[in-house]
């Protein structure tokens, strides 16, 4: 049995925001612009609505197991072996997703910032931070999140304010040119990156949140705030860059930051702005790594999860180097397999858990 750690509702809210924004801020403006063209911001609003609906669903599923994680609950619900099988699938899903996040950040740093450094080392140092955070525990990195979140907020405000002179409102026209379908598609891709990946929070919610009622509220508020942040970013990438450039570039948010130029004095501050996603992506990596390590430890009934972190990290580096041989492979995989893959774990598996537990309660009630 692992020791339980407790965080406050406020810390949980910040973790929700950081995990929601995570890699979304880097990847989604491009996807939204490619699917919904100049209506990307409508897709971002629709995606936020989907996200809030998912939070409602996760809150219902979460209240089934107030004192244990989803992995322990599955074992209790489905019986030892089937439960362990589902839990193993879930923990492997978290682990695999962690490697794709590392690939994304490695790809970003290698192509945009440090082209001479081998990608193995950028991934290694990024992962080392996640390993240290995981070893220190949830309470510690949740408290650090409170400090770091302030800077995310500050740099976000700087980005939004300094780009005001660059806005071109005619980029938004014509509205609804291609109808609802592309917008819906864009919104689904958007929520698959953001709110659906927040399933990882069921590893810490509601067990590790000290006040469940406030925690549920924090889940809604955090998702809403993060959704507004992404809405601004996608709106800005359309307003400043136009949908064409946004959809063609891999990391439009970074190009957005490059556009900042105030009075020939404040120039080239994109690396400072990049702190936003360094912090959010590291928190997404930490949450996924923490979730999978805790998951594996609970499946094997270990007393301490810390010994697993370093060997799993070693495997994770190799995995993140092999999952996508190239960005093209990643794009093809994301276009086809990603959505059904994430739906199975972030929607159908919790749905199955919910249905089985309701049926079980009914059968017990009849007796």
């Amino acid at each position: 049995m692992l020791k339980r750690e407790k965080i406050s509702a406020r810390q949980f809210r910040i973790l929700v925001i950081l995990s929601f924004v995570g890699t979304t801020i880097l990847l989604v403006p491009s996807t939204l612009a490619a699917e919904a063209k100049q209506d990307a911001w409508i897709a971002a609003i629709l995606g936020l609505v989907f996200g809030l609906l998912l939070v409602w669903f996760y809150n219902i599923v979460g209240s089934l197991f107030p004192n244990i994680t989803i992995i322990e609950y599955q074992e209790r619900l489905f019986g030892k072996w089937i439960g362990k099988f589902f839990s193993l699938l879930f923990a492997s899903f978290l682990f695999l997703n962690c490697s794709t996040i590392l690939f994304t950040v490695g790809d970003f740093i290698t192509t945009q910032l440090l082209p001479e450094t081998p990608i193995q080392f950028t991934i290694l140092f990024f992962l080392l931070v996640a390993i240290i955070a995981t070893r220190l525990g949830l309470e510690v990195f949740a408290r650090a999140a409170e400090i770091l979140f302030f800077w995310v907020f500050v740099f976000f405000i700087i980005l939004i304010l300094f780009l005001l002179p660059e806005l071109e409102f005619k980029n938004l026209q014509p509205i609804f040119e291609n109808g609802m379908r592309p917008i819906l598609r864009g919104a689904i891709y958007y929520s698959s990156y953001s709110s659906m990946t927040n399933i990882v929070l069921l590893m810490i919610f509601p067990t590790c949140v000290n006040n469940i009622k406030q925690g549920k509220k924090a889940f809604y508020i955090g998702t809403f705030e993060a959704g507004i942040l992404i809405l601004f970013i996608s709106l800005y990438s359309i307003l400043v860059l136009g949908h064409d450039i946004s959809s063609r570039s891999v990391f439009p948010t970074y190009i957005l930051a490059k556009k900042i130029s105030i009075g020939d004095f404040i120039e080239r501050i994109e690396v400072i702005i990049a702190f936003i996603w360094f912090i959010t992506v590291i928190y997404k990596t930490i949450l996924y790594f923490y979730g999978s390590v805790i998951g594996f430890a609970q499946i094997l009934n270990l007393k301490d999860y810390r010994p697993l972190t370093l060997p799993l990290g070693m495997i994770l580096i190799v995995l993140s180097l092999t999952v996508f041989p190239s960005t093209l492979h990643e794009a093809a995989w994301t276009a086809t397999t990603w959505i059904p893959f994430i739906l199975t774990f972030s929607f159908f598996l919790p749905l199955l858990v919910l249905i089985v537990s309701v049926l079980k309660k009914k059968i017990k009630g009849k007796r």
Partner: protein
Amino acid sequence: MWPIIGIVLAAIGIAIYEVPSMIKRNLKKELWVFSVLLIIGVTLSIIESLNVEIPNPMDWLTIIYKPFSDIFLRILK
């Protein structure tokens, strides 16, 4: 050659760092899991450093999910 030496040294370092505390606290099961995972990690890293192709789990997923992704793409077209 150098990457392999580096990987093995890192693994020895990890073992020196972790094993004594596990033995002291008498965590036998943890020690087993740790050793198995470390051996897997070292093997995979060495294979990767030799540029031998490792089977990609994403490709298996693509095959498993093929029927579902076809349906999904048809719905959203």
